[in-house]
């Protein structure tokens, strides 16, 4: 089957892409004017660009990462991490205790994500209504916006059987009498390769790279790549312009030439951490000290298990089975709950996520084909002792997330390691190895139960990571509770909106992409209407 790379064709037909290696053909101008400038090209940016261009607005997308397309995707970690991820997939919280995966390329995190698609859970929305004055965030009010996003992005049931890695989650859950169900995915004609995290080489994944961004370019939008939105110039109530700088692949400044962008409206969609970072660099008004606060991660702990049979966690659709059982044990604002999933594993991620070194490590790595992995996404942000983290700026003005792993969160980490070990033994595991520096390889549930209960659950010792950065520019019904209004517009800067995962006032409690697609769909339709009087629709 021939794979069509929409960009090859589109660029040939005159899509307007500037910056980076595209600079030769189209030199970066010193000034650009447009109707709406969008920072980023990920989940929130893509949906926004599609809707705004439908109404005929002149849109400029500014993306700091490179334009890489299916022809560049070779399913290799050594290429994908430096080219497609923030900080070469090594972004860390300030104390280095959490490793954060985020995309940094055209399509943003959607180019590298694992396609799991969930609507925002009802109890999360209820919490937002109650605590953040988001009265319109009800399941009924959002349903049509989700439904459109699902149609546009091919989100639907995954009908192929799960790979063994996911099947083991189902098997263990069934044996324990815990509910596990199938995950919806946003794919069309998926080859079941398992390389979603390294860029989809067949364009089956309906990421922003192959859906909304091409649609916007087709309608005349301009895309600046390898260009960072550096800072807004504003007078406290209105943005005057946005200064952008060319950057190299490693994120360093490629030259000191600034591009000044003037627009009628500006949409910040650089993703959590970077969006608050941009507003902090711009000294955006923040009278209630909310900017950068309440940044959430769904901190993740993982448990590896070795089986007699081959598991081949790298092969096949990455996440297709989940269990929300442990989100429902306690109330949402009680002890932290967690969602269970079975992540894809490739050599580098596996070798760096497992704890330890030397001969013990070599022994574990040799069992790679027989290794199954589970992860627990901790639902942070619903309890006073889970206030999330705070984004601040480094000396070089790049953003840094300070996220203290509190005892409250780490209590959830322990319960999650216990649940995962129990489930893995129930599924027939020969050994279970929690990713903790003091854990050993356990041979029975009894042994694991005793030992995990006694592990010191401290940052650094417990290996924690995240692929779900959220919050930092929260939306809320009152200015003192958030950075932006319920319609996405900044509380103080009238011609600036935030349209990405940084909007969420807590974590989502489910993989966030569809929450972003659905909610931004509503906000961007509203913005289009305010700017043009026209009604547009995703699907």
């Amino acid at each position, binding site marked *: 089957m021939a*794979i069509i790379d929409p960009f090859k064709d589109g660029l040939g037909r005159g899509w307007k892409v500037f910056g980076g290696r595209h600079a030769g053909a189209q030199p970066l101008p010193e000034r650009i004017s447009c109707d709406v400038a969008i920072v980023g090209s990920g989940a929130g940016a893509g949906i926004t660009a599609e809707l705004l261009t439908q109404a005929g607005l002149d849109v400029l997308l500014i993306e700091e990462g490179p334009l890489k397309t299916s022809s560049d995707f*070779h*399913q*290799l*970690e*050594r290429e994908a*991490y*430096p080219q497609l991820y923030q*900080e*070469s997939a*090594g972004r860390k919280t*300030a*104390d*280095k205790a959490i490793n954060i995966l985020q995309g940094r390329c055209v399509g943003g995190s959607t180019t590298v994500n694992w396609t799991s698609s969930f609507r925002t859970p009802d109890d999360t929305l209820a919490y937002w209504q109650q605590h953040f004055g988001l009265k319109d965030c009800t399941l009924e009010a959002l349903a049509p916006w989700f439904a459109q996003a699902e149609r546009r992005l091919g989100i639907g049931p995954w009908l192929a059987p799960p790979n063994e890695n996911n099947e083991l989650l189902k098997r263990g859950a069934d044996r324990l009498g815990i509910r596990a169900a199938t995950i919806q995915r946003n794919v069309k004609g998926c*080859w079941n*390769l*398992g*390389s979603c995290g390294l860029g989809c*080489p*067949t364009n089956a994944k309906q990421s922003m790279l192959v859906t909304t961004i091409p649609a916007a370019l087709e309608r005349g939008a301009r895309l600046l790549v390898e260009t960072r939105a550096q800072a807004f110039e504003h007078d406290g109530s209105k943005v005057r312009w946005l200064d952008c700088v060319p950057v190299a*692949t*490693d*994120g*360093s400044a490629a030259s000191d030439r600034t591009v000044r962008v003037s627009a009628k409206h500006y949409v910040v969609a650089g993703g959590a951490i970077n969006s608050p970072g941009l507003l902090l660099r711009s000294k955006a008004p923040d009278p209630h000290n909310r900017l950068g606060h309440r940044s959430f991660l769904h901190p993740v702990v993982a448990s590896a298990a070795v089986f007699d049979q081959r598991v081949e966690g*790298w*092969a096949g659709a990455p996440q297709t089975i989940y269990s929300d059982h442990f989100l429902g044990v306690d109330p949402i604002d009680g002890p932290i709950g967690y969602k269970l999933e079975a992540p894809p594993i*490739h*050599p*580098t991620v*596996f*070798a*760096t996520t497992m704890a*330890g*070194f*030397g*001969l013990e*490590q*070599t*022994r574990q*790595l*040799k069992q*790679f*084909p027989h290794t199954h992995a589970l992860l627990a996404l901790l639902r942070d942000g619903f309890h006073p002792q889970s206030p999330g983290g705070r984004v601040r700026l*480094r*000396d*070089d003005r*790049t953003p*840094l997330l300070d996220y*203290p792993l509190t005892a409250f969160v780490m209590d959830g980490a322990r319960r999650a390691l216990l649940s995962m070990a129990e489930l893995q033994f129930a599924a027939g595991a020969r050994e279970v190895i929690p990713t903790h*520096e*003091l854990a050993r390889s356990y041979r029975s549930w009894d042994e694991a139960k005793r030992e995990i209960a006694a592990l010191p659950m401290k940052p*650094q*010792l417990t290996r924690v990571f995240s692929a779900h950065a959220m919050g930092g520019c929260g939306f809320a019904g009152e200015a003192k509770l958030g950075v932006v209004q319920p319609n996405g517009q900044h509380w103080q800067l009238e011609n600036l909106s935030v349209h990405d995962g940084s909007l969420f006032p807590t974590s989502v409690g489910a993989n966030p992409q569809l929450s972003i697609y659905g909610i931004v769909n509503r906000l961007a339709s509203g913005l289009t209407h305010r700017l043009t009087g026209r009604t547009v629709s995703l699907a």
Partner: protein
Amino acid sequence: MSLAPAAQAGRMSTGPSRRRLLQLGAGATALFTVAGGAAWLWRPGVRGGRLTPSGRAVFRAVARAVLEGSLPAEPAALDAALERHLQRLDETIAGFPTATQAEIAQLLGVLSVSATRQWLTGLRSDWADASVNELEAALRRMRTTDHELRQQAYHALRDLTNAAYFAQSEHWLLLGYPGPSAV
């Protein structure tokens, strides 16, 4: 690891339990200036995005311990594998943003001077002379200590080593990973 601004150095007086970055640039400045003479300033471990000879010596030694059992045993093959590993580390480090590269440079600088190496790792011998046993003992102490700085240094050394080594397709055999499916 972080290059905290010198202005924050005064805050180091708060107790050791305080959550901190690997503040080699901050409070540790004073300590390292006494112990190692601002080591990283005159002997950075990374320059122009590449490991310096002293940075290479640290990573070469660390690889012998972290990758024990994964490296070839035969001396010439071992040498060649370590040489390719260091090249791959150069590429890995070059992919990081400037701030991270500076942190790695600083860490390696500190690890290259014997007084500060001993303080951070407890390793007595020079990197090149240390036996695998001595290296292992040092890494084990760093790994499980309560000292945040030492733990951070351990994770940085160990994770970079593994990331660079197992990203090379020639080492996938060891993991039984067949490589990507054909498209």
